[in-house]
């Protein structure tokens, strides 16, 4: 048989004969989706814990806030309330004050804390209404309840991205270093095997490993959290394959010279760890200062996640992802060329 299918099939056999590797590659992303999806699912209605500061008029506020489903009021003294606010056990402190014989309310909260502003507005509405404010009109409210906008929808493209990254690093980079350490690479060099056949087979076997990983991730996300692809499936396949090549090339470069496991893992961590946090896997990189965004967008993980998100969540076309695709192509060509120049075949 031709060496390319032979090496590729051999690599696949070696992979499936390592159950622990199969587990990490295929089930770890699924596990992440389940855990994070459950933790960050959109709750139907949130209840805010708020404090009413003890004084002789406090009971007025407590009474007026009673029976409101979104508010759980706790009667505490001022010192304790400060502690509770700091620890996030309550998001708002309400003090009943008397100003020139007129009853009024003071609010204390941290506007940067999630939910604090919403809680303040709800409490304010309730108290204003209870004290005589009349609404100008009654607004009609309809719950928006379509799939696509949840944290899991945001998370899945990120997980696909880190799956592709890890696969390229371990499946190509580490695998090559391992073969070099075992002197297998050197042994192959003593045969007429062509280097291009070997490298192509490493890439091909990587592409084949990737298919179940991607499909499984998408299926679990769909079954459990109704995560859908709003754009074209063809575009998703194109991006995923491009992403797989990109990280395979990067893995090849990482593995092109390393002669010990320590060097290889060190290099891989050096490359992967910053990208886990910077490239918008778990949260948007928009949170980083704006001047830093061009750097983040030039990293290899960002364009694959950004373009997958655009296609999957917004139903955007592949054409609109041209700048991301260009960055990814560059990350295919440059590391591959460097790897070819510096690759250590014999030792």
């Amino acid at each position, binding site marked *: *048989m*031709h*060496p390319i299918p*032979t*090496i590729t099939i*051999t690599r696949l*056999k*070696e992979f499936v*004969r*390592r159950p622990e590797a199969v587990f990490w590659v295929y089930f770890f992303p699924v596990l992440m989706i389940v855990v994070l999806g459950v933790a960050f699912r959109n709750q139907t209605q949130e209840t805010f814990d708020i404090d009413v500061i003890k004084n002789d008029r406090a009971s007025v506020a407590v009474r007026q806030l009673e029976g409101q489903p979104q508010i759980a009021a706790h009667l505490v003294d001022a010192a304790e309330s400060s502690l509770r606010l700091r620890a996030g056990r309550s998001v708002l402190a309400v003090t009943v004050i008397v100003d020139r014989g007129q009853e009024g309310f003071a609010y204390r909260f941290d506007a940067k804390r999630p939910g604090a502003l919403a809680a303040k507005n709800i409490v304010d509405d309730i108290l204003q209404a209870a004290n005589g404010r009349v609404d100008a009109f009654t607004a009609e409210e309809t719950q928006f309840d379509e799939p696509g906008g949840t944290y899991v929808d945001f998370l899945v493209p990120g997980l696909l991205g880190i799956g592709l990254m890890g696969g390229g690093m371990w499946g190509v980079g580490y695998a090559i270093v391992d073969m070099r350490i*075992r*002197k*297998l690479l*050197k*042994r*192959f*060099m*003593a*045969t*007429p*095997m062509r280097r291009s056949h070997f490298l192509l087979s490493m890439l091909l076997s990587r592409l084949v490993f990737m298919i179940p990983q991607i499909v499984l991730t998408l299926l679990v996300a769909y079954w459990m959290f109704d995560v859908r692809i709003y754009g074209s499936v063809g575009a998703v396949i194109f991006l995923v394959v491009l992403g797989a090549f990109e990280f395979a090339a990067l893995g090849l470069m990482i593995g092109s010279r390393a002669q010990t496991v320590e060097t290889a893992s060190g290099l891989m961590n050096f490359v992967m760890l910053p990208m886990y946090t910077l490239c918008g896997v778990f949260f948007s990189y928009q949170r980083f200062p704006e001047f830093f965004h061009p750097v983040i967008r030039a990293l290899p993980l960002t364009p694959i996640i950004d373009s997958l998100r655009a296609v999957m969540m917004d139903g955007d076309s592949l054409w609109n992802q041209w700048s991301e695709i260009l960055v990814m192509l560059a990350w295919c060509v440059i590391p591959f060329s460097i790897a070819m120049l510096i690759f250590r075949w*014999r030792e």
Partner: protein
Amino acid sequence: MQIAICCENLKKTYPGKPPVEAVRGISFSVNAGECYGVLGPNGAGKTTTIEILEGLLDATSGSAEVLGMNWGTSANAIRQRIGVSLQETQLSERLTVRETLKLFRSFYSDGISAEQAVERVSLTAKRDVWVKNLSGGQKQRLAVATALVGNPDLIFLDEPTTGLDPSSRRELWEIIESFTDSGKTVMLTTHYMEEAERLCDRVAIFDNGEIITEGTPSALIQSLGAEHVIEFATDRRLEGGDLELLRQIETVDQVEMFEDQYRISLGHPHQVLPQLIDHLSDKHIAMTNLATRSATLEDVFVAKTGKQLSSD
């Protein structure tokens, strides 16, 4: 007669401070159909030399021709016709014997089938067993099978039996002998004397990056001029005068001391032994150990270098 390997003034210097001269000008040639052994202690330059001939290392200077071709111009053609077993290659643990051989077979345009290779190294019963479940001897036989699967005219075996038990070693010897019996050429390195004596038509003894002597094993032993060895130990040290007296016994060639052992190389033990015993009893020295044996390549090495080969 056809020449399988020919190298002239081969040198390999590894850069560094100071540079390491692993091979310092080696010339030899191997005839087609011959089993050529390279013998020497660790660090003698055996592996460097064989890896230059396998095309895995570039020589610093000198020329090397393999099967009439040059590595610079016909590397792929040479690789199609040689087989190699390196020291310390770890084949993939989770592939079976047959899968490993099929993989290697796919690299050659011509060769024997994986099944035939399995048979040649007597691993038929183990052909569907994972490599990690093979014994050391079986792994080494598989390594030799990967060298045979391209149906080569020449195989290179770098220390094929190092670390194997005696019966595994004998099994490998038989495989190598059946290969040379079919008219093919073998070049092997070893630091086992008996391996070189049994397998090799000619041996080159390496020390310190140079060939110190070369020839058929029997000719090398005969060149000692003393084909027997007496080794003994005593309860007291012999003095210089004692050693001088022993040297004057007829047919004695050399008397040397290694640690607490004395070694006499000689022609006729039946003449020397009685005089040695008489001499020691005159001096009231008791012999604590005595052995006589035929001279080996080890003794050739000792005679040429004054050092002992690390053997086990």
